[in-house]
């Protein structure tokens, strides 16, 4: 007899895998939307019939779509993502290092934004409806009203160009020490933090405020405990499940936000690689990047669900 929570977790993870499989089919189908022919669109109208036929054979376009999809999926599962049309490079090789760079950037942004969101959330509950709370919500409203690439340019303009504190491009290479790398990515990390901070902070605030209305909080208040202690020791533990959930969702969002930020800061990551190859209409690269981004996104969402199942004491200790 399995513990019910194990059963729930297995179900959730299986659902995640199923979703990933379906998403890969959807991404593949998305690149087949073109009315006409991929080969034609790559070579242009002036292509000779021989060149078209060669390219079609090379791309395997003569096979039926379903067969092509399964061929693609099976090679992807074996780590073979094909070769880029534009320069003939092996995609898996080019992607490997870039994926590492992207995850490094996203992880740094997460390391800054998650603690900051929690602290600001607690502060705005402590001083709710007074000026710290209002200031924090005004800044967060402003930061969600501007697209992230514009926040990035505003920061570049004032911090990198006028104050000259940090470089305006975030080039990193293996030769750099960790300190140099961190200084190079300071601005992109700041932008990403601003982008996800508002939502995480607001949800933390809402989750704690929700708990603050319980009777036991009133008891704690009547006992004469300090407000910050009530929030941190009594309210926060019971608000942890929704907060963790929101954090995971924002980390998933971070992985996508990285795409645009990488282009702004000319950062050698996956996002830049993807956008470059969308413009070149390099379908195999786009499919590979799309699949990896979707996998990370679905993975983080699954983890969010798993954590909220684990954080629920009623599920952990069934009657």
């Amino acid at each position: 007899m399995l513990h019910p929570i194990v059963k729930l977790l297995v179900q959730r993870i299986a659902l995640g895998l199923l979703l990933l499989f379906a998403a890969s089919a959807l991404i593949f189908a998305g690149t087949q939307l073109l009315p006409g022919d991929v080969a034609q669109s790559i070579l242009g109208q002036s292509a000779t019939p021989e060149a078209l036929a060669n390219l079609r054979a090379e791309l395997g376009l003569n096979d039926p779509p379903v067969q092509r999809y399964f061929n693609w999926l099976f090679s992807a599962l074996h780590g073979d993502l094909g070769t880029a049309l534009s320069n003939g490079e092996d995609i898996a090789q080019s992607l490997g290092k870039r994926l590492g760079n992207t995850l490094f950037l996203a992880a740094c942004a997460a390391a800054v934004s998650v603690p900051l969101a929690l602290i600001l959330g607690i502060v705005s509950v402590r001083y709710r409806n007074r000026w710290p709370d209002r200031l924090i919500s005004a800044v967060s409203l402003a930061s969600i009203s501007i697209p992230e690439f514009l926040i990035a340019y505003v920061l570049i303009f004032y911090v990198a160009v006028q104050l000259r504190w940090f470089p305006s491009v975030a080039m990193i290479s293996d030769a750099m020490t960790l300190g140099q790398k961190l200084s190079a990515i300071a601005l992109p990390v700041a932008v990403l933090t601003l982008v996800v901070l508002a939502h995480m902070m607001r949800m933390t605030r809402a989750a704690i405020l929700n708990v603050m209305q319980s009777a036991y909080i009133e008891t704690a208040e009547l006992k004469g405990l300090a407000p910050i202690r009530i929030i941190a020791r009594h309210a926060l533990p019971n608000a942890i499940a929704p907060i963790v959930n929101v954090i995971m969702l924002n980390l998933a969002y971070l992985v996508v936000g990285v795409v645009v930020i990488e282009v702004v800061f000319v950062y050698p990551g996956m996002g830049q690689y993807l956008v470059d190859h969308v413009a070149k209409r390099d379908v195999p690269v786009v499919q590979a990047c799309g699949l990896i981004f979707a996998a990370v996104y679905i993975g983080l969402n699954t983890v969010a669900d798993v954590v909220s199942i684990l954080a629920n004491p009623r599920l952990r200790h069934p009657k």
Partner: protein
Amino acid sequence: MIRIPLSALLGLTVTALFFAGAALAPWIAPYPMTQIVGDVWEPASAEHLLGTDSIGRDLLSRMIYGGRTTIWIATLATMLSFLTGSVLGLTAAVAGGWVDQALSRLVDLVMSIPTLIFALVVLSVLPTTMTTLVLVMGLLDSTRVYRLARAVAVDITVMDFVEAARLRGEGRGWIVFREILPNALSPLVAEMGLRFIFMVLFLSTLSFLGLGVQPPNADWGGIVKENKEGIVYGISAALTPAIAIAALAISVNLVADWILTRTTSLKGGRGE
């Protein structure tokens, strides 16, 4: 007489100004959109209120025409998203059973891929025209509207007056459009404001990446792209769209907030 709070009034005014600017662009813009009228990146002057852009076009005129393109595409995409999303969402809620299951699982699937990534995948093979942009943005976003519409409608379908209409023998069309839709409208309208803002941000992002509106046509994201090289020389032309986008986003948000409080409070927001 409805009393409109100050913040909502401000929001309504600014939003109306933006739409008026979009509608009247050819009449209020001081110069044509693509005409080169001066030097590269001239500072603001009496002739060029915002200065000139990376190849010497009047920045204010490009901002006005750009606003027209941005608002026009975002509006069309929002309408498409609402039409598709709410019709499907209401249908799913009323029909239930396998129709609901099929639609909801399809929406789950589309939403499991980040919108920007999916849009990039699709745009890598489709021609970048305004029609494609509206279709891609509208259909991808309709998944969000579907979720909201379905959630709202599911609560309404179990109400007694819907039951009464069913017993009267009304058809499905009547129940969706005459019984459920009027009651689901207010949360949907408030959501419409937020979706519109999302569309403006989304379109700007795509254009900034070079995959949205194509030059020589202007839109706010494209203006950032054209002028971004100036940033490192301390020229702020690329930041102008930030102010426009933020002003539009905040004012639409104020209006949406007001609609939401009016419709969710028991007294219809009149008591506050």
